[in-house]
Each structure stands twice: as C-alpha cells, then as structure tokens.
C-alpha cells in the first residue's frame, strides 16, 4: 500500500480552507504556504492524523529587497513507513514580516524542533513564541547581531571581538 499524498492535501484543504495560501509541486516535492497564525494547529493535525512524526529541519530565508514580507520560515516534515513509497516528506512555509518577527513554536509537538528553532532565532532573529528555552545556540550569548540576515556584513568581526574580550576578562577574574 503506498501513501497517497494527494489525499492528505485534499484532507488538509477541506479541514483548513483559509489556512493554506498556496500549494506548489516541483519534482515530486510538495510545498505548502501556511498562514503564520495557524502553524501550530496545522502541524499538530499533520502529526496526529498522517504520522508526520519527524521534524527534519527548520530554517529561514531572508528576502531583503526582493519580497515583502521579508522572511520565510521553512519546515521540513517527514513521515516514516515500512515501505519505501510510504516515506513521505512535505515542506511548509510561513511568511514573516519585518515588523513582527514572531512565530508560534512547534517544539511542543516535536522536541527535536528545540535546537532548530534556537538556530533560526540565533542567525535570523525570528522569535518563536512558546519555545521553552529560546537562547542563542551558535553565537555567544551576548552577541548583538543576527549574522544570516542579508543586511549583516559577513566580514564584520566587531561583535565577535567584543564577546571574545568579555570572555577573556571573565576568565581572568574567575578561577582558571
């Protein structure tokens, strides 16, 4: 028995008529554009009814000066099946405007989303509301920029240097 992705999309369409803004299929990859406010309900429905148990990745794109709203948060969901054809991957996108960079967290459904959302928060500055522990994960905690934003100069080492000098001072005063 193979898994029918079209049936899933039809069911989603009938259950969330105003939530799906756009559906794209390219080379057997399905992308759904979702309303930002509905991401939690939508993910929960996909997980509970169609077994999308695994969050592969959460990332973001900065479309500075190319598109408004400026950001898109991208979710990759995976469903495991005993047969090869039942392994299905689906991509969800959410548009995030520059003025309000808050998105609802999906960590309550997939605990694997915890660090992925922290990474997006660290590098793009998108806040995940409802995340249990939203701290920076890669850059130093007192770093004051979001390096993957397109308006950040990749050669700007000043914020990193400031954090490094602060860490050095703390190391000198502490017991080393």
């Amino acid at each position, binding site marked *: 028995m193979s898994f029918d992705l079209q049936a899933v999309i039809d069911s989603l369409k009938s259950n969330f008529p105003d939530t799906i803004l756009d559906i794209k299929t390219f080379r057997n990859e399905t992308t759904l554009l979702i309303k930002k406010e509905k991401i939690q309900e939508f993910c929960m429905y996909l997980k509970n009814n169609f077994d999308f148990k695994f969050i592969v990745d959460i990332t973001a794109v900065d479309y500075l000066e190319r598109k408004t709203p400026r950001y898109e948060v991208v979710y990759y969901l995976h469903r495991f099946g005993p047969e090869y054809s039942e392994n299905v991957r689906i991509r969800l996108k959410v548009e995030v405007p520059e003025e309000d960079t808050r998105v609802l967290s999906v960590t309550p459904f997939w605990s694997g989303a915890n660090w992925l959302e922290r990474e997006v928060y660290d590098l793009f500055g998108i806040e995940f509301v409802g995340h249990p522990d939203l701290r920076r994960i890669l850059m*130093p905690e007192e770093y004051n920029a979001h390096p993957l934003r397109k308006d950040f100069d990749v050669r700007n080492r000043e914020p*990193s240097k400031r954090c490094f000098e602060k860490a050095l001072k703390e190391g000198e005063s502490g017991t080393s």
Partner: protein
Amino acid sequence: MGVNTNPVLGGDGFVTTKLSSFANWARKNSLWPMPFGTACCAIEMMGAFASRFDLSRFGAEVVRFSPRQADLMIVSGTITYKMASVCRKIYDQMPEPKWVIAMGSCTCGGGPFDSYAVVQGIDEFLPVDVYVGGCPPRPEALIDAVMKIQKKIEREGAPIV
C-alpha cells in the same frame, strides 16, 4: 660544553657546561605537546604523532591532553572567536616555559574564512613561535616546525628560576 677525562676518576669522562644550556638541552629533547586540534589539520597532526612519521624521534611523543603537563601547544585548525577564549585559557594554564606552533593557514591568518566568526590569525591573542603554512600542512612540515622550536629552545639564555 666540553668533554674531559680525569685520572682521579679512573679515566672516566665528565662534561662541563652551563646549567642553562643543560636545561635547554633537556627541554628541547622532551617537549610535551598539548594538541589543540579543531579541524582537518588535527588529522595531519595525528599523522605526525603516529608510527609513520613518529614525532617521538624528536622527543615529543608524550601528547598530553592536560595543559598542566604540557609545554608545547600545537594549535591546528580554524579558531573561532567563541573558541579563542578557550584556547587562551588553556594556554594560560600551561606551566612556563611554553611554546606555541600555529599549524595551518587558518591559525596563521584565518585561511579561507574571512568571516564574522573566525579569528584572522591566532597571534591576535597568543604569542606564536612558529607558523606552519599549508591547508593542511604535511606531517613533515609539522616535524620541521618542532625542530625549529628545538633550535629556538637551544638558543634561549633565560636564567633558571
């Protein structure tokens, strides 16, 4: 140094030297490296330590993972600013006298990573004795660097405390 024989000692020889050059001779032939490997250069460093290249021929085989027992720091691999404070802390924990080898393009000057997170050369925060270029350098290059350190130690005239 001079070799002498003395009839009082039954014809046995003895060596006259300065204490500082004796200490330098001992130090240069028993370097204990602290490997600070963060990237692919560390693989070449392991190659230099292992049987084919065998750094123990130069008396530097006792690789210590505790800075308290080491006197030669081999920094091999990209150092980010977040790692730099750790690197400096480990260097500070090493007892004097101590030496530093910057191994590979990344540690010498940032390598290909002209980016917001990467230190453009570890001499921004460490006193480097020998730079080894290459991406990554061959084990022979690291052996050459250790030998240069040995020459440097030999010439050192610092008083023993």
